[in-house]
């Protein structure tokens, strides 16, 4: 009995990461079997579908792709313009990170801990603190990496705080998961005078250096400013489809998207700065184009 207590105390201080990691190899088959019904139903959906449905879906996807590509073209020109402007101000350039598609295969059995399990682990290069997205917005961050799976803490967990800013005017705030079982966010320490309105889009601000900058996080649903209170009560609804989505993405952010200060990656660049400031800027610009 005593040994259990010692084990338990140990795990609180993180000595047992390796043991847990090793046991992860053992438990993978259990997840695999538990996930089988979902996979079978997807398979059935795929197999028993009529030709006309497929053609229709294909058509729709083609149209959606066309629209998305057009928007991407506009976005690319905007991004390069933005980078040029940032160059002028000697600020860091924004480079989109790479993504790795993943699937949610399980959710935490404790209804008060909002965690999900994804089917990518250490073997795929997942690391602790990595950001998880779905098609609509930010979902959460990786908190535990097992060999073939990882646990992700969702942004709506009450122990999770996301640094955000209002897209409209850059007002910064901290979005904490709701303390109830509801899937929503509460903005903390918002003063009465801060300019926030219902319907405002919140994007990740990149502060805290966990999440990459500028990913959509949530939409403000209500702002209530009680003059008797120190702070306004602001709630927001996460944009990501936390309850029902299965397909998600892990972001491998390039370092520069995370770090707000200009950082030179190689010594050559630093030396170049010492030699001639303008030349180094040209170099950096070429690297990023």
């Amino acid at each position: 009995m005593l040994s259990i207590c010692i084990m338990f105390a140990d795990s609180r201080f993180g000595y047992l990461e390796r043991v847990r990691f090793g046991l992860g190899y053992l438990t993978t088959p259990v997840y695999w079997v538990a996930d089988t019904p979902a996979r079978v139903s997807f398979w059935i959906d795929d197999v028993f579908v009529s030709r006309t449905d497929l053609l229709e879906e294909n058509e729709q996807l083609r149209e959606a792709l066309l629209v998305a590509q057009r928007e991407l073209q506009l976005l690319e020109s905007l991004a390069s313009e933005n980078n040029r402007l940032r160059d002028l101000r000697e600020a860091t350039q924004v480079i989109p990170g790479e993504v790795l598609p993943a699937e949610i295969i399980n959710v935490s059995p404790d209804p008060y801990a909002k965690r999900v399990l994804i089917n990518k682990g250490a073997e795929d290069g997942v690391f602790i603190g990595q950001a998880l997205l779905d098609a609509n917005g930010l979902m959460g961050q990786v908190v535990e990496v097992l060999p073939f799976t990882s646990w992700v803490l969702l942004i709506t967990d009450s122990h999770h705080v996301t640094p955000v800013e209002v897209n409209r005017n850059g007002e910064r705030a901290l979005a904490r998961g709701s303390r109830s079982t509801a899937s929503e966010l509460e903005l903390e320490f918002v003063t009465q005078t801060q300019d926030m309105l219902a319907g405002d889009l919140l994007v990740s601000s990149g502060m805290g250096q966990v999440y990459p900058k500028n990913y959509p996080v949530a939409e403000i649903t209500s702002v209530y400013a009680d003059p008797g209170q120190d702070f306004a009560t602001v709630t927001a609804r996460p944009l990501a489809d936390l309850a029902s989505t299965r397909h998600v993405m892990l972001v491998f952010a390039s370092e520069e998207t995370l770090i707000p200060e200009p950082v030179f990656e190689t010594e050559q660049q630093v030396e170049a700065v010492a030699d001639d400031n303008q030349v180094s800027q040209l170099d950096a610009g070429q690297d990023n184009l």
Partner: protein
Amino acid sequence: MQRRAHATWVIFLTFFIAYLLAIVPFPDWAMNYRPEWVPMVLIYWAMALPHRVGIGSAWVAGIVLDVLEGSVLGLNALGLVLIAYITLNLHLRLRMFSALQQAGLVLALVGINLVLHHWLRIMTNQTDSSGLMFLMAALTSAIIWPSLFQLLRQTRRSFDVH
């Protein structure tokens, strides 16, 4: 003891199925009512075969459950060891109990386990739950116990596990 350690795989298989049932996703409203499958299976084996399934097996089963659920390592292990200890002490009396009395004891054991979990989770900042809804799982476990008991007993007899 002329035939020892017979059909161990049946015990493993029942635990494996219990693990599956323990992590299969439920809709949100039903989360609190999920029966505690692994503790119940453990109670059965500790009662039926105390020389095979004891505190050590309970501990190993708990560690595996911890990894599966992603909870603090040792949380389930501690709870299951406690359950195994009490069951082993009572196993002779338990076998004489009626189904209803057994269900009552399962209610108490699973309840102790859940309360222990709850305390430890709050201590390790894993949950914010308020209220006693988490105890509903003990009730559903007790309701399911008689049929699970019959099922496991038939399994044990037909595979001649002893």
